[in-house]
């Protein structure tokens, strides 16, 4: 059983996730779309906190909300004037997008609700993963430990830094 507080928190988070993700893809001002994306990412971070992954929630806020959304805002302000509206959608593209999204929703939702018994599993008890466990899992080379992907990601980030500098510099 959940406490009343966590139920209320859950409904606030689920509602804000749904509402803000709809608004992020339908608003006509692009800067507002970035702001609604920020709220959706915060809702996802709260979901991570509710599921006892505090480290992941902190990473989500630091990297997504602190890094990626700021990048988006910079790029938007560099490439368009703040007051600009995007032009109205044609009804054809709106119908196409609506069909694709509704098909995905119906097929995956039907499979999830009627065919997937594990989706109704109750939440098992879990100790919060402490920093020592996370660090040893990230840095270990044993079974179920992630040193190699960690190094691969670090090389990827280095390549990304160099690529970003090369692509975006003045010619």
């Amino acid at each position, binding site marked *: 059983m*959940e406490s009343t507080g966590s139920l209320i928190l859950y409904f606030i988070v689920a509602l804000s996730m749904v509402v803000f993700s709809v608004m992020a893809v339908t608003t006509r001002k692009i800067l507002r779309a*970035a702001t609604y994306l920020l709220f959706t990412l915060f809702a996802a971070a709260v979901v991570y906190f509710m599921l006892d992954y505090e480290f992941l929630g902190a990473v989500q806020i630091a990297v997504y909300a602190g890094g990626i959304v700021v990048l988006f805002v*910079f*790029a938007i302000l560099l490439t368009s004037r703040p007051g600009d509206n995007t032009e109205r959608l044609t009804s054809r593209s709106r119908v196409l997008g609506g069909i694709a*999204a509704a098909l995905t*929703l119906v097929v995956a939702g039907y499979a999830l609700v009627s065919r997937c018994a594990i989706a109704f599993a109750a939440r098992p008890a879990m100790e919060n993963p402490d920093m020592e466990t996370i660090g040893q899992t990230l840095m270990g080379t044993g079974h179920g430990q992630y040193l190699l992907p960690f190094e691969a990601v670090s090389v990827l980030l280095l390549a*990304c830094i160099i690529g970003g500098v090369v692509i975006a510099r003045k010619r």
Partner: protein
Amino acid sequence: MELTAIYYLLPALFMFCCGVYGFITRKNMIAMLISLELMLNAVDINFVVFNRFLYPGAFEGMFFTLFAIAIAAAETALAIAIIINIFRAVRNIDVRSLNEMKF
């Protein structure tokens, strides 16, 4: 009332569908990138939820999400560098006006 996995999976599914809709309908490249972030984030939530509800002692979903966040950050930074470069070249980031790839 008990919050089972489906209560977390359905909002994530809805978020993914919003991303699909936005990716198809938007014409501005940055708005398309925003829709892409929505989809990536929905998938991250699914990883975490399945990890937490099915294998609470393991960390696979959590570390997949961690690496997915890192790769999403790298991908966004590169994509925005490309978009700004395109904006310098043609003063426009509408995907319909970008139909030739030369400088």
